[in-house]
Every structure is written in C-alpha cells, then in structure tokens.
C-alpha cells in the first residue's frame, strides 16, 4: 500500500509518499511524480512515512533525478535510518540530495 500526496507551490512540487514503495506500487509513484513535473524546478520528496523501498522504487528515484537534473533540482527529506542504509548500500546516497 502506498498513499501519495502532492502539493504544488509556484514551481516547487512536494510529494509525500506514505507506505511501501515496491514492485506493485512503484508504477503509481512514478506516474504521480511525472504527471506533475511540467514547469517544476524544485522537486521535494518527503520520505517521513516511507516504510520500505525496493529496487523498483530506486528505479523511480533515479529516473526522477535524471529529469530534475535537466530542469532544476530534487531532494529527499526526512529519510529514516533504515531507508538511508539502503541508499548507502546501493550508492544512491551519493547521487541523491538527501536532507
């Protein structure tokens, strides 16, 4: 289960994901982000309620990062220590801006 809440303020899009980002839910997560990215220059992904992320979720983050590198910036906020460890093991902590 994954719940997604979006807030667009001027050119800043904040996406709060709540639950599990896995093979089943990652396509929704990707579509929700991509559908709203036109004219966005700052993408903030609030990870405070993300309990789980598998490689399917990492794929979405990498693809969002590639888009935002071209049109502005992207950062992740409120990442738990468990999720952070996954980013570290996979080298994602080096390619993502994690606050």
């Amino acid at each position: 289960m994954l719940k997604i809440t979006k807030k667009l303020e001027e050119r800043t899009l904040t996406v709060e994901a709540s639950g599990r980002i896995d093979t089943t839910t990652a396509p929704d997560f990707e579509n929700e982000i991509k559908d709203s990215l036109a004219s966005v220059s700052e993408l903030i992904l609030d990870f405070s309620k993300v309990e789980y992320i598998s490689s399917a979720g990492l794929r979405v983050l990498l693809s969002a990062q590639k888009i935002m590198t071209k049109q502005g910036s992207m950062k992740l906020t409120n990442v738990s220590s468990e999720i952070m460890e996954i980013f570290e093991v996979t080298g994602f902590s080096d390619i993502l801006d994690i606050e």
Partner: protein
Amino acid sequence: MKELIIDALVENLDKVTEFVDAQLEAVDCPMKIQMQVDIAVEEIFVNIAHYAYKPDVGPAKVRVDVSGDPSVVDITFIDHGVPYDPLKKEDPDVTLSAEERQIGGLGIFMVKKSMDDVSYEYRDGHNILTIKKALGAR
C-alpha cells in the same frame, strides 16, 4: 518449516510477503531485519515472476525455515522455469553518477549485500535459490 506454493506472478507479491512476515513476526524479528528480508524476497520472487516461465505462468515454491537460538531464517525459492542463476549477474557499479547509472542488477545486488548468505543451484530441472539471515537478539 512452512511452505507456500503460488503462481509466479507480480500481483502475488503481497501474498508472498505476508506469508514470510507471519513466520518472522512469530519469532519477534526486529523491524529492520524484516525489511531487509522482505526486500530480498521481493527481488527474488519478482525475478522468478518476470523470467522463469515467460510467456506462460508457472508455480513458485517458497519455503521458510526458522531455527536456532538466536534465530536464523532460511528462505528457499524453487521454480521449474528456465535455468537462471541470478548470482552470476555482474554487480552494478554503485559509484557512478546519476547520469551514468544503469539500474539493472541492483535488486540482486541488494540481496547479496543484506543477507548473510545467498546460494543457487540447478537440480532435477529446478532453480533453487536460498537466502539466509540471522535475526539477531530477541
């Protein structure tokens, strides 16, 4: 030992995860380790769902065995699809930049990094992949 036999379909992932979690929760597995095991189970089961029987559908057997004190969990995945050893896949280069990163192979890499042991064998027409993880102090 508990066993689940289920069609290797991505939409059955939740059922497989629930089955494994029930065994882990019975021994008070710490949340962090449960997440690591869940990730490993997802990566392996989804691999089978994507590749083992294409374009047909076939079964996957998931066997969970918790033993010892402190507990160690062994999870075995068995399918009779095309022979495929995911451990032979080359590890991704995790030092590349976002632009250069290739995403293939990341799932099985996460399994290798987070489990204590991962082994594969092809025997009597079956792919048999086993992961092992110590569940730590109760």
